Structures are given as C-alpha cells and as structure tokens.
C-alpha cells in the first residue's frame, strides 16, 4: 500500500535524480584515481577534447584514459540492469538475472578459450560476443516449443521451460569453464580469474566504449517500445493476449534484446555480477513493477552502480585495481538488505 501511494508522486523526479547521479558519478570517475585531477583542469581538458585539440597536459592524458573506461562502465551497468529487469519481468521471476539464460556462460567460455590462446582485448571481446550468440542459438533451438508456440496458454510451464533450458546451458558452460581453467597455463590464470570476476581494466578503447553506449541506447529504446506490452504480460500470457499483445513475438524479441545486452556487457567487462539482479529490485521498490518506469530507471541505476564501483575499485587500493564485480556486491548487498528491512 505504501509502495502504491508513493509510486506515482515522483516517477519523473526519480529519473531526474538518477540522471544527476549518473552525471556526478561520471565526474567523479574522471577526477579520481591513482592521481586526482582538479575540477578546473578537468574542465579545460574536456573543452580541449570536445574542440578536437590535442591536449598534452597530464589532465588530458588522464581524461583520454578514464573517459573510455567510464563510458564502458556505464554501458556495462546499464546493459546488465536492462537485461536483468527484462528477464525478471519476462520470466515473472524476481530471482532472474542477466546470467540466468546461460548467455553469459557461453560468452565466458569463449573468452576463456581466447585468453588461453593468448588473444588481445579486442579478440577476447569478439570471441565473448560469439560465445554469447552461440549460447542464445542453443537456447532458441532447445526451448523451441516454448518460444515459438502458436498456442497462447495459461500454462506457466512455458516460462519454466525457457528458464530451465537457460539454467542447463549455464551449467554446461560452467562445466566447460572449469575444464578450461584447470587446463590453462599458470601465467594466464590470473587474467582469466580477473575476467571472470568482472574487470574494466581492459576498457581503454574509445571506439568500443562508444559502441557499447550506442548499443545500450538502441536496446533501451527497443525495450521501451515493448514496455507497455511487457507490463501486461506480467499478468500472464492469456490475459495479455486477450488484451491485444502478440505475446509470442514480444517475448522472442525481448529475449534477443537481453541476450545482446548481456553478451555485449560480458564481452566488454567480463561477468560483472549483482548489478543486473539488484538494480531492477531497488527501482521496483520505489517505482512499482511497471516496466515502462522500471526499465529506464534500472538502466540508469545500473550505470551509476558500476561506474561508482569501478571508481572506488581504482581509488581504494591505488595503484592496485580491485575487480568491479567484487566491489559492486560489497557496496550493493548492504544497500539491498537495508532496503529489504524497510517496512
């Protein structure tokens, strides 16, 4: 009841606050690190960058390093939170996260093989994307009946068929992963483990960062267009269908969106955990369950969470860098538990 009453007052305000938080965390991410930049220098370097002038100052150098990483962090967080929010709604299961359908498992396996073969960052990202695609194809092949049925049933078995198939693909990936890890040469094991924990250390390419941000934007818009339909599908396929939603097509389209989102995020930063699960939950507690509001808000919150966690990871034990995935859970779990305790 309280959630109901408070849900409407400030949907716009919540989005504005999240946008502001994104801006502030971006500023923080650019300023702080093993070396901090003053606000004035940052502004100067930013102006240089925007005007296309080659800066030679320390600030310009640091900006060129930190901006792609910050952009990638935001895109990764946004994509994972979007994917998690979509899957929790699509599968009507609050425990779902971006990794539940095994897409990231496929990506991780392929990435580990690439690292094992000594590939560079771009090749790792590319092979992770290929692995994600392979896992998605496997899901579509195996859960064919549930995903392509002409029959709109009350049957909740459809969701569990997709979910269980995904869990099986994830388990299979985990098995292959442990084989690869146990056979990998010692010298590469550390890189592999860091990658599996979720790590933005390799995110130095401005082009990949721009690509990731563009992917986030496009997938976010595609998902938003289907958000009203998804809202009805929360109440079951039969009800949504009789109210005018082509449920089978919407489900298929959105599962592809989640797979691309998860695959892109995992390819860029490894398996960053927790954010895709927790961001939609936190948002839902404030805004209610309607995907029209949850999707954009969760996306923004995810971007902020990963960016803040990565900034803290770079600063906390500088010059050592802590994996963003671990920090995310360290920051996020207490927040989430505090939220759960609230009446």
């Amino acid at each position, binding site marked *: 009841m309280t959630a109901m009453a408070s849900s409407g007052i400030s949907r716009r305000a919540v989005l504005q606050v999240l946008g502001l938080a994104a801006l502030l965390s971006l500023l923080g991410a650019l300023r702080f690190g093993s070396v901090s930049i003053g606000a004035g220098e940052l502004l100067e370097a930013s102006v240089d960058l925007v005007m296309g002038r080659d800066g030679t100052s320390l600030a310009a150098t640091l900006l060129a390093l930190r901006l792609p990483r910050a952009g990638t962090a935001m895109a990764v967080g946004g994509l994972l939170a979007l994917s998690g929010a979509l899957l929790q709604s699509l599968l009507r299961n609050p425990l779902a996260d971006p990794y539940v359908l095994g897409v990231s498992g496929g990506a991780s396996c392929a990435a580990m093989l690439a690292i094992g073969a000594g590939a560079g960052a771009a090749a790792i990202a590319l092979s992770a994307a290929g692995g994600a695609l392979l896992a998605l194809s496997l899901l579509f092949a195996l859960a064919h009946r549930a995903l392509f049925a002409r029959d709109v049933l009350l049957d909740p078995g459809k969701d569990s068929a997709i979910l269980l198939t995904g869990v099986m693909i994830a388990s299979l990936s985990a098995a292959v992963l442990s084989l690869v890890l146990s056979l990998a040469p010692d010298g590469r094991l550390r890189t592999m483990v860091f990658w599996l924990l979720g790590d933005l250390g390799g995110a130095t390419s401005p082009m990949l960062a721009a690509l990731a941000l563009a992917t986030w934007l496009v997938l976010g818009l595609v998902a938003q267009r289907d958000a009203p339909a998804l809202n009805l599908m929360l109440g079951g396929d039969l009800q949504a269908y009789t109210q005018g939603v082509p449920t089978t097509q919407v489900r298929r389209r959105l599962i592809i969106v989640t797979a691309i989102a998860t695959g892109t995020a995992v390819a860029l930063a490894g398996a960053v955990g927790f954010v895709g699960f927790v961001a939609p939950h936190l948002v839902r507690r404030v805004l*209610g369950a309607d995907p029209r509001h949850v999707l954009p808000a969760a996306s923004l919150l995810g971007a902020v969470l990963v960016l803040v966690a990565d900034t803290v990871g770079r600063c906390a034990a500088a010059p050592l860098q802590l994996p963003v995935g671990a920090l995310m859970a360290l920051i996020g779990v207490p927040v989430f538990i505090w939220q759960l305790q609230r009446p």
Partner: protein
Amino acid sequence: MSPPLLSCRGLEVRAGRRCLVRALDLDVAAGQRWVLIGPNGAGKTSLLLVLAGARPAEQGTIVLAGTPLRQWSVEHLAGMRAMVADRWIDPFATSVLDTVLAARYRLHDGAGERHGGAGAAVALARDCLAAMDCLALAGRDVRHLSRGERQRVALAAALAQETALVLLDEPISHQDPRHQIQVLQALQARAGCTYIGALHDINAAARFATHALLLYGDGRWVAGCSGTVLTPDTLSPLFETEITQVEAGAHRVFLSHG
C-alpha cells in the same frame, strides 16, 4: 435477422487425444448471454480459449463479426472480445486501478492517473470498478486482495476493455451469495454486450443466461434457449446425477441429489 456476432461451424476441440467437443455448430447473436454447462473436464475452458483465439481449433471455422477469427490481428481482436480467466498471475505489486487501466492497452490511454494518462480512461476504469462493487479497492495492491475481490477486479478490467463480446471462465466462482447476484446483474445491465461464460452454478446460469450450451465431454453437445435446454431431463444425464426442479416464487431452482 442480422448475421450472428460469432458463429462456429464443425468446430472440434481436443485435449491431447481426447475429443471434448465434436462438430460444434453455434450461432451467437449480439446481445445474447450464453452459458457453457458441463461436468469437470468437459472442455468448457478449452472451448473458451479456442473462441478467444488463444488456442487453435483442431478443426472447423470460427467467424467473428463477419471475419474468420484467424484473420483478426491480436490488437483488433482485443477491441472486439475480452476474456476473464479463472486465475490471475500477480508477481509484482500493482494497484487495482492500474490493473484495470492496463486492459485498455490497445487504446493507448491507460498510462495511469498520475502519469498524466487520459482522465476519461481513469473515469471509465473507476465506473467499471464501481459496477463490480470494488471501487473502494482502487488504491490497493492486487496481491493483497481476497480471491473474490481479485476476481471482481478482473471482471472490471474486462469491462474497461469495452468490447462487444466478453468470454467468462467461471466468473462468480469466488463470489459470496450477494456478489454472485450483483456481478451477474451488473453484466446483464450492460446494453448490447454479448457474453459466453462457463458457469458451474446451474441456478445462477438459469437466471443469467438467454442460451445454454451443454458439453458432455465426449464430443456430444446440446445448444439452445436456456429455458428449453436447462431442464432436469437434460441436466441429470449431463452430470450423471439426479437433478430435480422446484418452483420458488418467480425462479426455478435446481436441486442435485448426488
């Protein structure tokens, strides 16, 4: 006579290998209220799903408002028929008002009161809630309603969809005696609305329906005016139990004797 709103020819409904309804020919004219009567598992819900277009028929054709059902788009169909199912899935917190407004998806005006959604849609949603005696629940979370209340909210949502045809699957199964009558009367009072509903309560069916379709569960069926079809002679073999009829004032009351 105007063409029927819904007509079936040679319709067959199966559940796995069992044939539930065979070669059904049915004409439902606008404004009629049909009840589906039959024992458990006779195919009432299955037939409703087929008529709703949610499940393909094994055989036969269904024509809705002059156009074969298969040629209707999902969205246009939603403007013509609504369906009240007999179970609901509420995984996350949603207000009753939003649940009713969501039924207006195809009209794109159900965005919600506080979201600046159309005031007319909200007013209509509240009218529908009031017709189902649950306006007081408008701000409540659907997950915290009793089953009877949740069922009336689902009925209100179907009314808010503003369709000519409403399919009902056990619409009063969770209602107390007062609300059983109230719900059926409110449905009946909506001018021009056509209903096809599965009902287990023969007495409620007899009061509500203009027509009845008896389903035996083995393919056989009987259709006709409720006054001629709903009699002890047809109902007793249908339910394989002795059913008698007594007059109680203006009403006929059926008694089953097990």
